[in-house]
């Protein structure tokens, strides 16, 4: 029996922010230097806008599939869309309480024939005070047959 949602935690660690910022070519000091971040109005270095994808370290695809039970065939799955909704950016030192659920699961007729199934995984990240920090919407598309055929 699939679960409705999965709760997990996303630590926002200083070294992880640095590693992630470097991986997207960042040079903005607010991601590397606490002093510069404080001058820009933050309490510590800031996580880049797409940082919450590091949730994959804390909730694997295998666990997600097993627990939420979308029953996707990953040989036919592509990442279609990604959206982030922000109240603020996370800062180093906090641990976010996260919840993931399937927020959309629709099947449409493809333009080239066949059916396309779109599944959106929504992750909400709240801070220690229970306020929502950001939301990430991860949308996969499953084609009706193997895309390489």
């Amino acid at each position, binding site marked *: 029996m699939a679960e409705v949602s999965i709760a997990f935690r996303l630590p926002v660690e200083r070294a992880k922010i640095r590693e992630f910022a470097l991986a997207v070519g960042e040079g903005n000091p607010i991601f590397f230097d606490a002093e510069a971040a404080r001058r820009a109005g933050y309490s510590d270095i800031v996580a*880049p806008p797409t940082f919450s994808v590091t949730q994959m370290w804390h909730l694997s695809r295998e666990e997600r599939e097993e627990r939420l039970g979308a029953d996707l065939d990953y040989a036919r799955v592509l990442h*279609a869309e990604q959206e982030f909704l922000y109240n603020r950016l996370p800062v180093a030192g906090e641990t976010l309480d996260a919840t993931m659920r399937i927020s959309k699961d629709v099947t449409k007729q493809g333009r080239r024939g066949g059916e396309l199934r779109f599944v959106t995984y929504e992750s909400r990240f709240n801070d220690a005070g229970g306020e929502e920090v950001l939301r990430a919407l991860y949308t996969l598309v499953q084609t009706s047959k*193997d895309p390489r055929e």
Partner: protein
Amino acid sequence: MTLPEPGSAFPERTFGPLGRVDIVRYAGASGDFNPIHIDAPYARAAGAPDVFAMGMLPAGYLAHAASDWLGGPGGFRRYKVRFAARVWPGDLLACTGMVTTVAGGHIVVALTALRRGEGPEGLSLPDEEIALTGEVEAELGSSVFVEEGEHGA
């Protein structure tokens, strides 16, 4: 500094050429170890001619460009991307942004990232194609950089 208006373009920002090490670095940073992005024999067995970037890597570069254009990421309220084409080792990623609306202290910018390059052997890709499109909505800060008609680094 120019007050941004609908139709204003931000200076094109180019990343790359994308190295295999860049893909591996992003795998480690993000935790996305799907072997199709890092293991060429696996990618070939799965029907791809070579490894290719996980979509969130060019999406991360595009967010980086948008953050620099908007004077930092602190004002971001929404960032959305749609993936249109795979990005291959050796590709350049050219990011462009065009202001669509400015209202109520918010700015909305339409984003495009083009991949430029020969692509892997075995695929006859155009030298340039849209890899991703997207949109960023942000609170308008004090330092938004618009350089109409200019194409800089």
